């Protein structure tokens, strides 16, 4: 028991939690924005992979780290445009289109990577973001190491979550997005073009997904390999439900999952000899399913989610 307590009391755990949470925060916000407008975006897994690859590639070719993020966001936006074209304009099944985007973007990432980066024994690396030192805060005992020793994108992700919460619930644009996800016919009747809103939300949401991927190669690690997203996209889709489509809860959900993940990693080192490590790997997923089961029962799903909108048809 004291081992468990030691883990929780260590500043290292909390620093890791924030790091693990960052791509989940960005990805969940992206998926959430799409779904608020009524479009499920299962392209997330592939878009994150592509964002990880293209952001890294830009930096590898001499761009600075923030430009790498920007490139990843733009690439994500392009895949969003593709998904929106298929689901909004053509009204195709959002599941099928999203899975298609994931398969395409994942394979395409690997192809581009192989094409442009010479095969080598050890994967080439870049210099990733370094933790920034915030005068005063970073020197605080415990908190300084636990919370204020992150790389800039982590702080950015948290700020984006708060900004998105404000956008969705406090601005006319956010209301228009929510109305489009609830009842596009009602939005249209109030002079809002639901098609435009959906395109915008899917493109912006996909850009966030691209940035979520780029965090992996530009901050968490320093190189790219094709399987590195490892289902994080799917976790984000579940976190959206867990968060009841609220950005501030998405932030909490991502932190919670990251806590389980960071915790099990450390638990492995303590109890690894006694229990097979695979068991620990399951912990975050099992706990997430349990949390989802509790939270999602009360969630109010956007009523028009997954329903294509066609003008003049009810």
């Amino acid at each position, binding site marked *: 028991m004291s081992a468990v307590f030691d883990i929780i009391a260590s500043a290292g755990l909390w620093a890791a939690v924030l790091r693990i949470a960052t791509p989940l925060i960005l990805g969940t916000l992206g998926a959430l924005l799409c779904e608020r407008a009524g479009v499920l975006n299962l392209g997330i897994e592939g878009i994150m992979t592509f964002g990880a690859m293209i952001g890294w590639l830009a930096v590898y070719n001499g761009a600075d780290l923030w430009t790498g993020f920007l490139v990843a966001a733009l690439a994500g936006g392009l895949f969003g445009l593709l998904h929106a074209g298929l689901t909004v304009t053509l009204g195709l099944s959002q599941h099928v289109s999203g899975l298609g985007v994931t398969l395409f973007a994942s394979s395409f990432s690997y192809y581009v990577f192989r094409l442009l980066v010479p095969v080598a024994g050890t994967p080439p690396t870049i210099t990733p973001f370094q933790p920034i030192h915030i005068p005063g805060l970073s020197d605080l005992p415990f908190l300084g190491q636990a919370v204020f020793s992150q790389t800039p994108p982590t702080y950015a992700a948290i700020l984006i979550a708060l900004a998105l919460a404000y956008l969705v619930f406090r601005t006319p644009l956010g209301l228009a997005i*929510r109305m489009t996800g*609830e009842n596009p016919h009602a*939005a249209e*009747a*109030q002079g809002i073009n639901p098609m435009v809103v959906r395109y915008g939300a899917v493109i912006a949401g996909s850009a966030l997904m691209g940035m979520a991927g780029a965090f992996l190669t530009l901050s968490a690690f320093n190189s790219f390999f094709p399987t590195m997203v490892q289902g994080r996209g799917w976790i984000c889709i579940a976190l959206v439900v867990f968060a009841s489509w609220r950005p501030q809860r998405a932030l909490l959900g991502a932190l919670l999952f990251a806590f389980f993940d960071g915790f099990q990693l450390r638990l492995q080192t303590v109890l690894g000899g006694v229990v097979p490590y695979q068991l620990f790997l399951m912990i975050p997923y099992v706990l997430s399913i349990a949390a989802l089961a509790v939270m999602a029962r009360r969630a109010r799903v*956007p*009523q028009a989610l997954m329903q294509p909108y066609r003008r*003049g048809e009810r």
Partner: protein
Amino acid sequence: MSTPVLQIENVSKRFGQTLANDNISLSLDKGEIVALLGENGAGKTTLMSILFGHYVPDSGRVMVDGQELPAGRPRAAIRAGIGMVHQHFALAPNLTVLENVTTGTESLWSPRSRRREARAKLLAISERFGLKVDPDARLGDLSVGEQQRVEILKALYNEARILVLDEPTAVLTQIEAERLFATLKDMAAQGLSLIFISHKLDEVMSTADRIVVLRGGRHVAERRASETSKPELAELMVGRAVSRPVREPSDPGDVVLEAAAVTVRIGGVDRLKAVDFRLRAGEVLGIIGVSGNGQAALAQLLSGTAAMASGDLLLFGQPVDALSVKDAVTAGIGRIPEDRNKDGAIGEMAIWENAILERLSSFSRHGLVDRQAGMAFAQTIIDTFDVRGGSPASRIRLLSGGNMQKLILGRNLIDRPRILIAAQPARGLDEGAVAAVHERILDARRQGTAVLLISEDLDEVMALADRIQAIVGGRLSPPIPAQEASTRRLGLMMAGEWEGETAHAV
């Protein structure tokens, strides 16, 4: 004479083969209420969709205060002061009343929603027109009547001076409808101009100043309400004289269905409380009441989808403990559900599939569905019951409400059921279809079917039923014979005023 607030000039619109609007003109003055009367498919909704910019007309134009409105631009229509109250509300159940009303009313690039101002404005409007709502209530928690109020407030919030209501009473109870029309008259008195679409003669006569009749996409007549009559309007609307059939005297047979102190509990609430009734072969027993008073539980009990908590139910003299759907079908109980789209038919399936669903076993051979026989059966129903607008293979969703109802009726009546449970059989149907449905029900009665007619339409019950019981709060009044029924007496019964009369008479 001053310029009319609204002029629609020579508007035509074609959809494929059908000319939905054929050179229609219409004008509306300040403070006036105009009714747009016509059967389903007469082109009323198309015309209003053109007015509101949902459709672009093939020719013709819309003028507001003498200014031409750009075609196909809902925003321009809103800005010109046109507000639309849709039949299927354009509202989001998960958002609050205030959010529903204010969506799209501010610049989308404004950095902050001005909620306090919006709330004050909404409350001021609701005060002025007597449309009470709680701005922070979740829309989905409101009753249908309240939701309609929100829909009207939404238009008024957008500074609408011309209000268009598409079949506003289709979803309302009688009391809610009366309240709505009082509000509309008040709004006209305050200088708003209103158009309402309807196919109900009563409400058109009582509310409108002027009535414009559309038929087959054409403007066929225009009358001042004070200078016309219901029969004249009915004839103009349908194109020929129509009259609802009236029941002739008959000799009821044996009691086929009897309930004694039956209680039905659904979701922990007693929806039927110790009700008594007896239904005889060859008679129509009318159950009158404002909807939501236990009618659904009654229909479900007799269709086999709800169980009895206590009491006795006798079917053909035999006690039944628990009636299952299968029992009901085997016993020859035909059912016309209240919500035909939800419970009566599966919209995406073909007409023939819908026709044979409850008798699937008689249409299967070696475990396979006998398509040919099913199609033939559907064709027989279509021919016998005059179902128009579809073949056995077309999806049932494509039928109009009246024709879908005729198909459901036909599916039940073709086997001469011994009992027919008809819940709101004519709801939402136009005048011609109502007459057809009523004729079929009386036919069945003539042939010895016992009909339980559940309805909230006084005219319907008085025309069809031999005996009438009122349903209020899950309790049934004692029956009264039809010849003793008057609108007043039934109204009192629907309000629960039957105590003191001799209980269990007749």
